[in-house]
């Protein structure tokens, strides 16, 4: 599913639409250049999952955890240098009981569980325009994929 947004609030709304479909154990892999809106997108996801605390960039802390109705782990691997550091994060353990969102996760995609939602944000022709591609992979999404695409298509239509 490909959508186009104008402004951070629209990107956040798309994140919220995805968030409505997420549950513990779901992995979201976010790709996109610096400033493409990955953290903005995650803010929308977290809001939809009932996170009330302000969502801030995990670039410095690497992992930010939020305990709401659906616990969330917001990860940014931008500062990691070695594959070992990625193993040491214990992403699989976080997936036991959280929704896990990984910024720059596309860079290490082969090392991550294959069951996941891939979100790619691309800066458009105008500075506030973003193209957002969302694809859900894996059998865990078979029962939810159509409903997700319908919900996202509804946003595109507005």
């Amino acid at each position: 599913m490909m959508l186009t947004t104008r402004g951070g609030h629209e990107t956040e709304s798309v994140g919220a639409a995805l968030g409505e479909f997420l549950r513990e154990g779901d992995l979201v892999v976010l790709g996109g250049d610096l400033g493409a809106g990955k953290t903005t997108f995650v803010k929308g996801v977290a809001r939809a999952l009932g996170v009330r605390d302000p969502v801030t960039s995990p670039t410095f802390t690497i992992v930010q955890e939020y305990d709401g109705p659906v616990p969330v782990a917001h990860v940014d691997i931008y500062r990691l240098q070695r594959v070992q550091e990625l193993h040491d994060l214990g992403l699989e353990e976080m997936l036991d009981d959280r929704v896990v969102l990984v910024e720059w996760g596309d860079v290490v995609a082969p090392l991550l569980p294959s069951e996941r939602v891939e979100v790619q944000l691309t800066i458009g022709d105008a500075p506030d325009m973003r193209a957002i591609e969302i694809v859900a992979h894996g059998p865990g999404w078979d029962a939810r994929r159509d409903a997700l695409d319908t919900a996202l298509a509804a946003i595109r239509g507005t």
Partner: protein
Amino acid sequence: MLLLGIDTSTRRVGVVLANEHGMLGRVELGSSADRRPPRHAENLAPAIAWCCEKCDVKLSQLSAIAVGTGPGMFTGLRVGVTTAKVLAQSLRVPVIPIPSLDLLAYPLRFTHALVAATIDARRHEVYWAIYQPVPGGVQRVSEYELGGPDELVAELQARAHDVILCGDGVLRFPDAFALLGGRVAIAGPAHASPSLTALAELAAARFEREEFCPPSEVLPLYLRQSDAEIEWERKGA
């Protein structure tokens, strides 16, 4: 002699205090039965404080810090091993690192069967090691391994010996081990977490033999290792 022991290699936070005569007290919080996110970081320090308070032990009295080094949960081991190192460094006492798989096997030493200790490694894999009971303890007869449950099953089939399986790894994949049939017994939830009594006993023995480790040299046992660099060429573009 006063020892503080810590094991956080599974979902359980474990704290134990012991002297030369045995265990003084212990605190265990969490297990695989608790589906909430594990709270190693939030619970370990209060558990240590509470255990010390109820046992009338001051941190300044401790002779050494024992710690289960896994293999196991990364998130738990980070907290447990770091806490042990920081306490030891600030109290100027040594650390006694003991692999958590050893702590699972030790309580099952009163048998003629082999003991296979397992810890859930996620990704449909388990950490495991095989032990043979010997007078006074268990002797490890395999490496510390990481692999699918089927790999451990194949290893046990090859050994063709009675086996007791313990730890949360086997509880996670009961069907895989059911294939082994009659020569295998599965120890239940009572043997799901590394034993704190074992940690106290084994650490006391190592303390007597002065088998110490400087805090700076203590590392968790990570079997999932990689020397590769993350390919970041896109970041520079």
